[in-house]
């Protein structure tokens, strides 16, 4: 395995880490308006309060690693997705601000403004991530000079929008299960209903997306013929999904959460299988695609970065675990809370 493939895998790991971690806090935002009382909304926000910032760092690191390992793919994708990414930034900033400022002032109007903007910003950011993934699956109009030649409207293809909605449903479910773990009493019972609802929507959209992909995107499944072992991940994915309702039914929320984490990891993996060895398919001419080779930095840079990652990642994993351990257990509102 060469360094280019290693970095493709590492980017996949970062993306999966981001989707699992920020996924649950975006999901909490998506279902934020489902509870009405001020204290309950504070519990929802505080369930992710100490964690969302660290979770978002996975996105920042993913972006940095893409820039570093595959600068051409970073440049093409970010300039091609100009408008959606600007809207994404808008959503991410608004979301951070909403959490930070909601509970700083007592007036109901102030609080409901930030509640609504928290919910919309979380949903919009998730939708745009999904749209980006959908476009990457379909391929983008990339010219021989590696530049994007489409328009903003061309990015809003029905398939991309479907994947966007699927992302919203996935994170909403993931966030609901997380909330079930972090709440208690009567609130927890209502969250339980939301787990069922969001799971239902997730399942329907999962089926639609799968059928659409199999019917319409031959490129996305080509690697399965070359590497039949990838079917194993499909099977694991289906098992993980099937385990979610089982675990909810048995009231074993920890299992359900582990299953939804596994589901997201498997979906990210399948996304990688669909792309490989390309980072961005060119829909104009397959030869113009950006691959892990023609989009990459030099061997030396990839090697230096691999050294940095090997030195740093054990620490990252260690203190991420410590922080999650410190903030384990049910949410308690205190004077340090949002």
């Amino acid at each position, binding site marked *: 395995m060469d360094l280019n493939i290693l970095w493709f895998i590492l980017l996949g790991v970062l993306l999966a880490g981001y989707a699992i971690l920020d996924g649950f806090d975006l999901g909490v935002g998506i279902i934020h308006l489902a509870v009405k009382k001020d204290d309950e909304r504070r519990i929802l926000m505080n369930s992710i309060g100490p964690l969302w910032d660290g979770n978002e760092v996975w996105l920042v690191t993913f972006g940095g*690693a893409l*820039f*570093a390992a595959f*600068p051409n793919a970073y440049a093409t994708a970010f300039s091609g997705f*100009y408008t959606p990414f600007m809207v994404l*930034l808008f959503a991410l900033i608004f979301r951070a601000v909403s959490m930070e400022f909601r509970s700083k002032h007592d007036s109901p109007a102030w609080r409901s403004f930030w509640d609504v903007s928290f919910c919309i910003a979380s949903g919009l950011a998730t939708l745009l991530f999904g749209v980006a993934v959908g476009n990457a699956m379909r391929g983008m109009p990339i010219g021989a000079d590696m530049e994007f030649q489409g328009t903003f409207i061309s990015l809003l293809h029905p398939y991309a929008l479907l994947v966007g909605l699927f992302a919203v449903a996935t994170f909403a479910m993931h966030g609901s299960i997380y909330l079930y773990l972090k709440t208690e009493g009567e609130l927890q019972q209502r969250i339980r209903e939301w787990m069922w609802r969001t799971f239902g929507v997730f399942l329907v959209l999962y089926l639609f997306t799968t059928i659409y992909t199999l019917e319409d995107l031959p490129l996305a499944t080509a690697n399965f013929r070359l590497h039949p072992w990838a079917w194993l991940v499909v099977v694991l994915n289906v098992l993980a999904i099937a385990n979610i309702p089982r675990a909810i039914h048995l009231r074993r929320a920890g299992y359900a959460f582990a299953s939804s984490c596994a589901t997201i990891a498997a979906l990210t993996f399948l996304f990688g299988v669909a792309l490989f060895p390309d980072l961005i398919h060119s829909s104009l001419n397959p030869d113009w695609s950006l691959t892990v080779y023609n989009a990459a*930095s030099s061997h030396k840079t990839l090697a230096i970065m691999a050294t*940095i990652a090997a030195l740093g*990642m054990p620490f990252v994993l260690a203190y991420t675990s410590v922080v999650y351990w410190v903030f384990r257990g049910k949410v308690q509102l205190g004077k340090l809370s949002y």
Partner: protein
Amino acid sequence: MDVSVLTLSRFQFALTIMFHYLFPPLSIGLGGLLVIMEAMYLKTGDLHYEAMARFWTKIFAVNFAMGVASGIVMEFQFGTNWATYSRYVGDVFGSALAAEGIFAFFLESGFLAVLVFGWDKVSPRTHFFSTCMVALGAIFSSIWIVVANSWQQTPAGFHIVGQGLGARAEITDFWAMVFNPSSMHRLVHTLIGAYILAAFFVMSIAAWYILKGRHLDFAKRSFSIALVVAALASLAEPISGDLQAKNVAQTQPAKLAAMEAIFHTGNEPTPLYLFGWPDTQEQRVNHGLAIPGLLSLLAYGDSQKPVAGLDQVPRGDWPPVAATFHSFHIMVWLGLLFVALTFVGLYFRWRGTIFEKRWLLWVFVLVVPLPFVANQFGWVTAEVGRQPWVVYGLLRTSDALSKAVTANQVLGSIIMFIVIYALLFVVWVFVLDRKIKQGPDEVITVPAATVPGGLFGVAGLRAGMGGASLTESDNAKEKK
């Protein structure tokens, strides 16, 4: 649309980076001050220090969130607006950015959770450790980003692969890239600037409390710690600036010439302008007052040697002279003002009368925007003085744009940023204002004899040394 993608993208970059840079220097400097305050709490067990650290942590948290939110924009923007630049520098920046992500961002944001939310969940020692890690993370972050920026100023440790528009820089020597000729000078100058800013920020709020007669004990201690830090940093900054200017004279003569508006090299020793108004058309400085030979002395350590002027640089490679000159001079004058102010402050602190000198306290309250201005103009000098290059001598800013992006898209995003940043700024000021008016938790000193055993036990545990006092936070009602 008549305005070009280039002009709009440059405007957007200036807008977003200058907005972003309101926050990181405060985070860097305040992080260091928090370490000092918590260390004193651990050492003395005095709960006043704990109350101080708790209060400044709240301010720190608000500021940090703003820094993260506005910082993500910067990372996206290299790709969205400057795709050609990203392709060109990616291989070199790659290692620096990866290091920043892995070593700095995770460290900061992970331990920030413990710093802000962990007061009652972990032991004071663990909390102190987290504070140190957050402060360290902020410094790591600045190291890697200043290294990357310095590489744009004085590229080293690379070679060029490919030709024409397909060319890019590839790394040949990682450590030569990290320790490129300007990186350490610029890093030191940036960090000291951050400490000046944070110390003045703390002094401003503390002086206001003293003037209002509130939280006196807290405010006086905070003021004194910050005053010492501000004085040391303000004194160190001109020294670091002098070393850096000598470096600029060697590595970027066009920038130094623009900083001092030297249009003609001449045969005479070069004077240093105290102030003036450069006229680029006429190539002279109007209404200027200059000290003869001083620039020659400062730049080369030789008061006789003329400094290379802009006449030795092709006209097309000149940086904008007036902007570079003015931003540099504003920064320098402000820097000298900080030295003077902190020494006046130290003198009266030593005399023990500073907290009665209301006029001086008002000065400290009101000067707080100036360190922000000085930090911003320092960067304006560095970045505008590098023009027309984005990578000095290698890649022109005008060649660095994204090819897939239109002027209207950039205009749209600029409008969006103006709206959202105006809103963010208002909300930031509003929340800071509330936090400041709310103030720190009062430390209630309880005579040991009257304290019931249980409470005494708690207080003793919290203070670590059996101290008989208790912060209000223990029995305060939950904040609504």
